[in-house]
């Protein structure tokens, strides 16, 4: 694939300049930058650091659970570990890494100079970053001077009344609340930026129906952020009022309702899953066609399915609450809504398969991860349909079956596509290819580890192992299964470390990539790698969904078919 097509032609004619500078100048430049590419890379770097931290927390939990009656960590530490792992992975890994790619790619893909509001962009990044640091500062400041070493331990969904002052003394819960509040503000700012960029900054000819699918998926994701993350912000404000000013939102003693928190949290929480997965769909929709050497199958259906998912995902939240007892109508509605969302998702899977069908498939590392994503996302969807049936959920709610299901989505689908995207766009960001050999090691180790961990995690769930327990008795029959699950975590850790090594090594020693190493079709590949600081000094104009194809094949441009 690395063979260079004659298209050294770079739409972007800006000259590349790279003067040598002092170390301090470089730091100053990164800290004060409002450039979407730099902010995007900072988002990704920051998310990768937290990915390692939260991954380590997962590893510690798996060590604790590998054998029965283990005393590797104390129950208190275990509570903190799963709280921090969940919170970090969702808010400080998933969101920032997806926004990082969005920040980097969207302006390049739609032929824009930068995001619509560059300074808001920098503000959003720094306030999110501060939120993450605040969360981890709780390890030092959670209980003030006398209780150093504490962290939030209320679970990532922090059900009331556990978060009340009485049950969560000290400040660890406040760190959790404030860090989510801050990162929520940053998230809304970036989402606003993405919507404004997509709507107002497209280059001439880039009509909405000519945008790359990735941009479409980010547009829908960002619109969902407004209606999903804002309720969380509101709920966090209420929780802060409860904890600091003595109000009674979630105070059952004064007639308040713990159920209201659950509703507010999951009104955010479920759309959040789709906010995380839609950008992953976007990566798949860019990577699969390029390595099948075919245009994406069913572009309009893909867009329609995306919008469908966006709308339906707002009406499924209470399937997290079947065990609460919603009544027959509530159960019916939320079961139905949850099942119906598998229709647009299924449309997407069929379209990706149809794109692969009859294509000349190149199984390079990004494509390997994308293929893994397809199968794993299918299985995750199938267990999702099982759990969407309220009576089934009553049996397995809060068990390891649920944990296995949502990790199949978050790791098997989203993280796999994040890896794919990293291998795919790394050459664009750094100008160098990642090592294919190390990438294959990473893929196979991670694939084996993933399946060892999460395939086998379903079974203890069915056998009745509840989530969030810090240990279990030997006579439960969960022992060997938990051992297998934990051993998978080791494979995943090694795979991830190879990935990190590959990232660093390739930055210095990777093969020079050139502007278009994958022979791809979207506008970002028309720039040099890495793109000039001032990208698109000459505004490009496009006529089809694959402008670079038109450029490479003037005898057979896409615009005559679309």
């Amino acid at each position, binding site marked *: 694939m690395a063979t260079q097509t004659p298209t050294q032609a770079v*739409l972007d004619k800006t000259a590349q300049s790279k003067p040598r500078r002092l170390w301090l100048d470089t730091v100053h430049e990164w800290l004060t930058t409002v450039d979407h590419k730099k902010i995007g890379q900072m988002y990704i770097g920051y998310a990768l650091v937290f990915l390692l931290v939260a991954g380590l927390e997962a590893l510690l939990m798996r060590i604790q659970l590998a054998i029965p009656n283990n005393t590797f960590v104390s129950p208190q530490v275990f509570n903190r570990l799963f709280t921090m792992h969940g919170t970090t992975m969702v808010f400080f890994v998933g969101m920032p890494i997806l926004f990082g790619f969005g920040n980097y790619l969207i302006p390049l893909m739609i032929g824009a100079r930068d995001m619509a509001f560059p300074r808001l962009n920098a503000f959003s990044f720094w306030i999110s970053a501060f939120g993450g640091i605040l969360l981890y500062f709780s390890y030092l400041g959670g209980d003030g001077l006398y209780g150093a070493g504490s962290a939030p331990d209320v679970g990532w969904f922090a059900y009331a009344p556990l978060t009340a002052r009485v049950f969560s003394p000290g400040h660890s819960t406040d760190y959790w609340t404030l860090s989510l509040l801050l990162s929520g503000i940053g998230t809304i700012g970036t*989402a606003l*930026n993405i919507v404004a960029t997509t709507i107002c900054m497209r280059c001439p000819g880039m009509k909405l129906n000519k945008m790359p699918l990735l941009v479409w998926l980010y547009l829908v994701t960002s619109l969902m*952020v407004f209606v999903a993350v804002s309720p969380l912000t509101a709920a966090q404000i*209420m929780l802060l009022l409860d904890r600091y000013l003595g109000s009674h939102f979630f105070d059952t003693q004064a*007639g308040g309702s713990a159920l209201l928190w659950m509703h507010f949290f999951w009104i955010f929480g479920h759309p959040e899953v789709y906010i995380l997965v839609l950008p992953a769909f976007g990566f798949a929709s860019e990577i699969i066609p390029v390595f099948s050497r075919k245009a994406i199958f069913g572009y309009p259906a893909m867009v329609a399915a995306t919008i469908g998912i966006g709308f339906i995902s707002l009406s499924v939240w209470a399937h997290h609450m079947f065990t609460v007892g919603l009544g027959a109508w509530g159960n019916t509605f939320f079961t139905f809504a949850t099942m119906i969302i598998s229709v647009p998702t299924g449309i997407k899977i069929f379209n990706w398969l149809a794109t692969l069908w009859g294509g000349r498939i190149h199984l390079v590392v990004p494509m390997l991860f994308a293929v893994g994503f397809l199968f794993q996302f299918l299985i995750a969807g199938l267990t999702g349909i099982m759990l969407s049936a309220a009576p089934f959920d009553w049996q397995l709610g809060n068990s390891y079956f649920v944990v296995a299901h949502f990790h199949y989505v978050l790791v098997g689908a989203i993280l796999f596509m994040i890896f794919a995207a990293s291998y795919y766009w790394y050459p664009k960001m750094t100008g160098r290819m990642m090592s294919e050999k190390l990438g294959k090691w990473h893929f196979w180790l991670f694939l084996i580890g993933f399946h060892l961990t999460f395939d086998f995690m379903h079974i203890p769930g069915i056998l009745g192992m509840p989530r969030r327990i810090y240990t279990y008795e030997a006579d439960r029959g969960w022992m060997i299964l938990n051992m297998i699950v934990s051993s998978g975590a080791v494979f995943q850790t090694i795979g991830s470390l190879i990935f990190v090594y590959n990232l660093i090594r390739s930055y210095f020693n990777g093969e020079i990539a050139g502007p278009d190493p994958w022979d791809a079709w979207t506008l970002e590949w028309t720039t040099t790698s890495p793109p000039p600081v001032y990208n698109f000094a000459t505004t490009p*104009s496009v006529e089809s969904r694959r402008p670079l194809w038109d450029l490479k094949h003037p005898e057979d441009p896409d615009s005559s078919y679309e």
Partner: protein
Amino acid sequence: MSLSEAAVIPHSSNEPWKLPSRGVVGMVCLIIAEAAIFIIFVVAYVFYLGKSLTGPMPRDVLELPVVSTICLLSSSITVHMAVHTLQHGKRSACSLWLALTVLLGSIFLAGTAREWYQLIYHDGLTLQTNLFGTTFYSLVGLHATHVVVGLFLLSLALLFSLRGQVTTTHAARLEVLSLYWHFVDGVWVVVFLVVYVFGR
């Protein structure tokens, strides 16, 4: 022929390429996000209506804030006039309308302050008293916070306008600010209906 010369793909049709203003789109996005926050607070208010374990109840202590409501709603008209006059280059008229908007907004805020003083010192209702106090102060307070932010921004615009720094070229920006102010007014209509009309 080097491809780089063919790089800028010729744009076949010369149709004008016009996209919406990013300021307006950005403000609309902010309004959607803010509306979602308000909806959650309104839902909490409605959910806890009549569930307070102790008094005072809404009907005992709340009075219709007629004057301040009229002031706030008419400030939507004045801010619209400010934008309108600026678009037509009447800069001093714009200052006048802006000043009127700030004045009307301040009267509204003073009305809220008076109401809260009455509630706290005479009726003994605070955030901690009961669920009504909790949800009332947080909902009305959240709205009042938005009024304060809006007033601050409008006062800045007024200040610039009085110093003669606001010209027709700034009309688009003032329009974005006016969108926010209209939103704050719209929220008040909802709060007014929920808290003072139906919830009493």
